């Protein structure tokens, strides 16, 4: 084997560089996010529940939002949702966010943990949050 020294040294450096992210992030495990639901509107609800169960929403909220969008925009099925003694619009901006007015702690926590970047807020206006 020619140039044994160079090759082995090169391989060591290469392996070190490739596995750098693993070492770098070792022990710095990101904690599993817990989206917060203690907003003023939710506090006022008789019964703290969403349109579907927590587990369903956690897994399928994106599909549900797409279904709502299609039924509202295409079929004109703009409906009112009665929930926990209050009436909401079938809408992200005028429905979901009326309860979940804490986008940073509700939406963004999981989205940044899962590294997903939904483009909802390019157009929809997020509720103004109290900067405390």
């Amino acid at each position, binding site marked *: 084997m020619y140039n044994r020294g160079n090759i082995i040294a090169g391989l060591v450096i290469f392996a070190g560089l490739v596995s750098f992210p693993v070492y770098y992030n070792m022990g710095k495990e990101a904690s599993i996010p817990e989206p917060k639901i203690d907003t003023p509107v939710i506090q006022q609800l008789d019964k703290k529940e969403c349109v579907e169960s927590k587990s369903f929403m956690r897994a399928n909220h994106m599909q549900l939002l797409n279904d709502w969008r299609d039924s509202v925009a295409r079929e004109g099925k703009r409906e009112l949702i009665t929930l926990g003694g209050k009436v909401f619009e079938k809408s992200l901006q005028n429905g979901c966010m009326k309860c979940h007015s804490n986008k940073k702690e509700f939406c963004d926590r999981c989205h940044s943990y899962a590294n997903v970047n939904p483009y909802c807020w390019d157009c929809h206006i997020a*509720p103004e949050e109290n900067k405390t």
Partner: protein
Amino acid sequence: MSVNRRDFLKYAGLSTILGLGGVSVIDKLFRSEAEAAVFNPIPEALSAERWAMVIDMSKFKTADDYNRVINACHSIHNVPELENEKHEIKWIWTEKYENTFPHQSDEYINESIKHQPFMVFCNHCANPPCVRVCPTKATFKRKDGIVMMDYHRCIGCRFCMAACPFGARSFNWEDPRPFIKNKNLDFPTRTKGVVEKCNFCAERLAKGLKPACVEASGGALVFGDLQNPDSEVRRILSSRYAIRRKPELGTGPSLYYIIGGNEHA
């Protein structure tokens, strides 16, 4: 002890029935907790077979008459005011007489009509070319005749802008957000790279409100169902002579213009 065939089938059948029943009982017990959300249609929603509008140009007299209508629309729909004219976004705007009715304009027409700005916006055509060319079905025609857009689907190809003979569509060359003075927090904005236009206030109709421009026009714009002979729109069309923009193209616009005062009409 052996089980004969007949008994085995009996047991099997019985246990299947019990098993199925059991599943539904378990379902009821553990799953139906969050079924309390009730979806109801909005009772006061306005509906029609085909929405249309009559625009009585004789009622537009001062610049304020135009601006009031334009501002009513643009402010609730978060239409930006861009400095660059080439990037202009408009849902409702004014056009010169000869550009509004290019094949119907007459050189020797009444001077006041000739120089009057005309209120123009999406015609919500019966046979909309923009819908036909849209490759993603982002633009579509609703059952009530409203030509609407689903901005989620728009890929910004601008075929619709090329197809629309009325120039009713605008493209977002840049992010419109910084150019919206007072955002209406109940309506979305658009984003860079999508086309937008008038939606006949579909979101207001659903709540039982007439379009914002109609409300602000003080009677100059009349909105109603073209298929209903008793509607106000039909009543006006049967008594006054109205013209449409570029009817020769066969798109079937839903906007009717009444031009000239009562004395000659």
